[in-house]
């Protein structure tokens, strides 16, 4: 029982990222916060099964993900509020990309199949390795890689933006820009 104070501290430190993952999964702030609270209670009850010094972030993400899918199975998928709750709150914290742009991105992300969405979020934003992400999602590393790649391609298609390492406009959008400006 010595472990309690530091377990609490580590749980606290992971909360912001856990919450962002919950929003990515559920697509809604209010649902996400319920999910985080359920996860906190589950994790607290199971803390004896957690070994200090191992990856608590991956452990908590796994619990949250399991919780999310078991709740989804129970309730059936509810209609998502694609632009409402999140955009409203996000406008209080505008990112460097601007609220409108971010709302488009959010919509595109929500449009991905759940397995691809969680994959690209875990790898691209949560900072997990492919091995860790595969463990969280209980799939093979190769599966994780292909999900991330499909998610990325799909987002690029939907948002009509070019890929990596291409700071200048690609030939097509360059034409469009020239055309629009000219």
């Amino acid at each position, binding site marked *: 029982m010595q472990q309690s104070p530091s377990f609490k501290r580590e749980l606290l430190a992971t909360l*912001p990222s856990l919450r962002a993952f919950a929003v990515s999964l559920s697509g809604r702030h209010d649902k996400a916060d319920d999910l985080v609270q359920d996860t906190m209670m589950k994790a607290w009850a199971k803390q004896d099964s957690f070994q200090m010094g191992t990856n608590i972030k991956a452990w908590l993400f796994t619990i949250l993900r399991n919780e999310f899918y078991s709740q989804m199975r129970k309730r059936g998928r509810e209609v998502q509020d694609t632009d409402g709750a999140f955009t409203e709150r996000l406008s209080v914290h505008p990112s460097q990309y601007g609220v409108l742009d971010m709302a488009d991105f959010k919509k595109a992300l929500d449009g991905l199949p759940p397995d691809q969405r969680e994959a690209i979020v875990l790898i691209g934003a949560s900072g997990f390795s492919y091995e860790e992400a595969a463990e969280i999602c209980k799939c093979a590393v190769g599966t994780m890689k292909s999900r991330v790649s499909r998610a990325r391609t799909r987002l690029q298609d939907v948002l009509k933006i070019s890929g990596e390492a291409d700071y200048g406009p690609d030939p097509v959008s360059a034409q469009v820009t020239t055309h629009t400006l000219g």
Partner: protein
Amino acid sequence: MKDKGKMIETSAPRTRRTDDGLGPNSDIGAKLRAFYGAVQDQPIPDKFLDLLEKLDEVERAGRRKDT
């Protein structure tokens, strides 16, 4: 022949983050992190902190009863 073997050896054995198209130069990667960061950078809601305190309290009370 030797070189060939070497090449295979030096190619990254595990996770290479540079080839997933989500690196610092990636537009999708940047948007994804901005989206995620917008939530992550918000202060932890009081209800979470309250819950944590409550869980801690219950546990401490339980321990007192045990001893």
